[in-house]
């Protein structure tokens, strides 16, 4: 591409964001032959680490929080600015101002600032001892310490993937736990209550108390400590620990005034991966990757989406790193979205996007055996699949989704030779 700025060994590339995407993006620049100065800015004091274990094995105690550091061959080949965040961006001067007041001039910039946990609506309640959220390693260490103290009950506010994982961990630790969500089932917003209900039944089998269709109004305190939640319907649930798991918000505030098109839903990118300004014009020195990047996905008719998925962060960061290093030869980035969630001994995996699905069918396995694949359709096309303890089949469904195969599929599969298939309402609220 003619408008891609060529980097030389005198150039300075800066990565904002010391997480998975930032690290993999920096590595990709090196792999693509960039030999100049490379700086990674991370607002946490730690080198990049892996987050998925934080809501699973770190909480059960199987892994200490400080062992999830991501392996990398970059270590000696990069300048780390850890414990400082990005404060603002001046694209005209090509400088990045950091929260400690210093500035960095860049020739290429990779934005990978990711997300943070969505805060509880009442900030003073969120600061109560006994109230936790999980985003960072330090968050997980604090929550782990609170669980080790064996609280009489834990409430988990929000039954998305993180909430379900935490609830399952509590039961593994034999702690009473109550999962609260306004949807009629866990995971209702992400995979619909038809399949979410099947997963909820597994949680109930483990002894997770469910308060569905319920919303928390307040976190209550006594003696300066969290002691329970008050529901909007007036009910109270006593607990010593609350975990706020309401999803994530994207870290884009620092881009205010930069002229780039960014808001709480992410920073906009063009189809190559360069960020765009308010008029849709790309800045060929700046790319974005990971949770924060909102990009036109070729599989979804170019609709702009931002994905909070581990594998996506890696793949898109590699793409963006190569792009900034001057290698624009690769295909347009557009991998099929996929993610996984480990809840107790159950592994839920997904491929595609369930958003807007109008039908779902159990196409393989049997929910009674806690082993199945659910396929989602939208307007007669396959759009997503969710597996429970059957992940090996997902690549085959990924292919159906990539090719927008007709839904429901007419084909027999090995454990469903009859071709009969029940179409259900996916149950999105």
């Amino acid at each position: 591409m003619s408008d891609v700025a060529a980097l030389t060994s005198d150039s300075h590339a800066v990565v904002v964001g010391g997480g998975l995407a930032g690290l993999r993006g920096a590595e990709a620049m090196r792999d693509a032959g960039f030999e100049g100065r490379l700086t990674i800015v991370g607002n946490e004091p730690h080198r990049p680490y892996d987050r998925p274990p934080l809501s699973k094995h770190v909480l059960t105690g199987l892994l200490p929080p400080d062992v999830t550091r991501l392996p990398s061959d970059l270590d000696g080949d990069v300048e780390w600015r850890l414990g400082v965040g990005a404060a603002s961006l001046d694209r005209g001067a090509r400088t990045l101002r950091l929260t400690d007041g210093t500035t960095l001039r860049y020739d290429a910039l990779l934005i990978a600032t990711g997300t943070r946990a969505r805060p509880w609506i009442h900030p003073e309640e969120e600061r109560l001892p006994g109230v936790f959220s999980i985003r960072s390693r330090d968050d997980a260490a604090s929550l782990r310490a609170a669980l080790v103290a064996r609280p009489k009950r834990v409430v988990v506010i929000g039954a998305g993937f993180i909430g379900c994982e935490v609830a399952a961990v509590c039961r593994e630790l034999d702690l009473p736990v109550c999962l609260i969500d306004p949807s009629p089932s866990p995971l209702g917003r992400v995979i619909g209550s038809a399949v979410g209900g099947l997963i909820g039944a597994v949680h109930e089998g483990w002894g997770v108390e469910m308060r569905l269709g319920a919303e928390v109004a307040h976190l209550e305190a006594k003696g300066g400590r969290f002691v329970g939640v008050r529901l909007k319907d007036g009910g109270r649930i006593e607990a010593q620990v609350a975990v706020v798991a309401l999803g994530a918000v994207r870290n884009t505030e620092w881009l205010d005034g930069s002229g780039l098109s960014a808001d709480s839903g992410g920073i906009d990118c063009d189809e190559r991966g360069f960020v765009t300004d308010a008029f849709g014009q790309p800045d060929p020195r700046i790319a974005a990757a990971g949770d924060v990047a909102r990009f036109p996905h070729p599989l979804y008719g170019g609709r702009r989406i931002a994905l909070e998925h581990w594998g996506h962060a890696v793949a898109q960061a590699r793409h963006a790193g190569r792009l900034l290093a001057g290698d624009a030869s690769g295909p347009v980035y557009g991998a099929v979205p996929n993610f996984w969630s480990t809840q107790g001994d159950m592994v839920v995996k997904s491929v595609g996007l369930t958003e807007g699905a109008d039908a779902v069918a159990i196409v393989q396995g049997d929910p009674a055996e806690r082993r199945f694949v659910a396929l989602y359709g939208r307007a007669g096309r396959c759009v997503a699949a969710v597996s429970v303890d059957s992940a090996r089949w997902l690549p085959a469904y990924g292919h159906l989704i990539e090719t927008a195969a007709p839904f429901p599929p007419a084909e027999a599969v090995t454990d469903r030779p009859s071709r009969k298939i029940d179409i259900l309402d996916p149950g999105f609220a």
Partner: protein
Amino acid sequence: MPDDTLLNQIKDPANRPNPYPLYARLRQHPVSLQDDGSPDGVWVASTHGAISSLLGDPRVSSETLPPADRPKTGNPITDFLIKPIRDRIVNNHRPFIFRDPPDHDALRSAVMHQFTSERVQGMRERSDRLVEELLDAKRDVRRFDVVDDLAYPLPVTVICELFGVPREDEPKFHEWATQLASALEPDSLTNDETRAKNSRTFDAIAGYMGDLIKEKRKHRGDDMLSGLANDTTPDGVKMGDYDLIATAVLMLVAGHETTVNLITNGLLTLLRHPDEMERLRADPGRAPRVIEELLRYEPPVQFRLRRAISPIDIAGITIPEGGDILLLLAAGNRDAAVFPDPERFDPDRKGVRHLGFGGSLHYCLGAPLARFEAESALTALARRLTSPRLVEDPPPYRAGAALRGPQHLHVAIEGMGD
């Protein structure tokens, strides 16, 4: 269109020493219809992408074995009463390598449940000792056959001990296993004589196994067969007798007919690449890399058979419903799209995704055994053999095209160290 007789050339014993040029020609088309003498031919998948995709495709069935075939005896009670019942039982209780979910999953999980880490670790140590004993027995020779003297007896002893089969009964298995392994060859689908022989052999081995299982119920040992015969898994699976017999036969046949080729192909490859032999000798810690590369470069199982139960669109063609599929794993292992410079034996490859153990739900259950047995054998051979060289290259090969490996591998040595 590609040459549609490549598969026949692969089956031709004359091409056994080096089928790889044929595989390379097949790879020009990821999936091609090959004439194999059957009315509809067989769909051969030869690229890494096509094979991986079909291995994980729920429309691809492993239930490929033809119905049992026993000759009539002339006795009406046997022929019209006992035989149909027996045929039905055998046809419904195949080993899980030839079964689909959900039955496959339940049977496999019952075996996995017995594969405890203590058992595997115990057999690993046993394997190391066995190798030293087998090589000690050849201490004074200047020439030996790696197949008969090491590569065959090692895995056979390990699997027999793991399953609690008395050592003195092992010779019976040798013949049974060789015959039953032909079920993995493509002709087993079409050749009536092979089918009939396999049915008779299965009856013989099943009779033996049935008795052994009864014995394990009376006098439980700490072997896997005792465990399978007496335990219920946490998922509530307890195998019925017919499934148990089929499973035990599968494990014993697999233990007899596969790792032997990994070890023999391994030594053959190392003798053809003396620098790699020397590097392994100097650093036995390289063994896992060497073995993974061997599983790519010379896999003991070259291909597996499947059947499409629905039409499958792949790589621009459609495999029809009912179509026989041959997954040419060894060809996928030399696909340049996945493995740069694929014809080179290079244990230092990164991120090897070989198909040597298959993939997806039928991924080789015995992989850990195969790995440590090959590691015991190849590290000891590299350490102990002084100036080894091949007496004959290529060596004579066994009949199988699917389970491919030398019949004998005579090696001349100047000495056998400790």
